[in-house]
């Protein structure tokens, strides 16, 4: 997805790898993606800690 971006700042992008065992690995995690992942698994502490940091920032 990142390679197709024409204008920096116009689009946020994260790289996500879904594993067969249910784990999700993410590179370039943005705040919206963190919120999405948190909604999928609110018990995951790694993501929860990241969405708590400054809700104002996108």
């Amino acid at each position, binding site marked *: 997805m990142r390679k197709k971006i024409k204008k*920096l700042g116009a689009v*946020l992008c994260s790289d996500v*790898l879904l594993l067969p065992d249910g784990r999700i*690995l993410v*590179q*370039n995690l*943005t*705040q919206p993606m963190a919120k999405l992942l948190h909604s999928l698994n609110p018990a995951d502490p790694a993501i929860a800690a*990241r969405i708590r940091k400054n809700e104002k*920032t996108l």
Partner: protein
Amino acid sequence: MHAKIEDGKATKIEDGGSRIENAIHPLSSILRTRRTTRSAIARERTAKARAMLADCHFCAHHCGVNRLESEVGLCHATASARLFLAQVEVTDELELIPTFAIALSGCDLRCDFCITGLESWNPRIGQSFSASKIAAMATAALDDGAGTIMILGGEPTIHLYAALELVALLPDTARLVWKTNAHGSAEARELLDGVFDVWLADFKFGNDACARSLAKIPNYTEIITDNLLWANGHSELIVRHLLMPGHIQCCWEPVAKWLAENLPGVKVNLRSGFWPAWRARSHPELSGTVAAADADQAQKIAEIYGLNLVP
């Protein structure tokens, strides 16, 4: 005896009819301080860094090519920086996020497992770097609540002139992070001294054989450990190690041991999110992710050496 400073100007105070000449000293002090602000330092060093492109020794490869004349060294970078990412992220260490991440294209290493292999191995990919445009975006991000600005790559050291040009335009109060593979040269370090608040440095390989096999880098451990020791003495340092499947004993354990012995208490971020990106599958052991048992073992190694792990 006293001096008054109003609107940035010193007023010499008459005292009993005698002029107190040294009343001007506080202003001189302020001006000295202003002359040595980070942005001013970066502006001055930008010119030096640009001149160094004629005989490039930014990284430890010391290619010595003239990038101003379109010669390229091992990183293939020219005299024009490009970037492939500029956005607010929450991926990094908790104390650094949200960070406005600026990723410059190109790198001096050739890690087969690079998560951004396409952009890191090709400095011509992405968009032209405009310091003023990126500085405006970064400043806006700070205004919106970003805690830090992070310059990364690829490897930003190969574009040191561009990074300094950007820093010259950033607020002096911004907390700046230099995300690096720690394979820079002493010449680069000199230009970076005092510019970044935090060095976020990789210590990828625990021995030279793995470094040569996986990233085609000679003399890796001597170069990286020298730079880590320097960084620890000149800024805040966070060392990162990405666990690689099959490289716990040969890479992580020696890294952990060295950190414990040489940088006790330094912040260490042990990352277990490896995935077989780019050309990782050319190495059979890198064809998958890190097993839970291996991640647990790596944590135990960290505990044995008493490392200061940070999330």
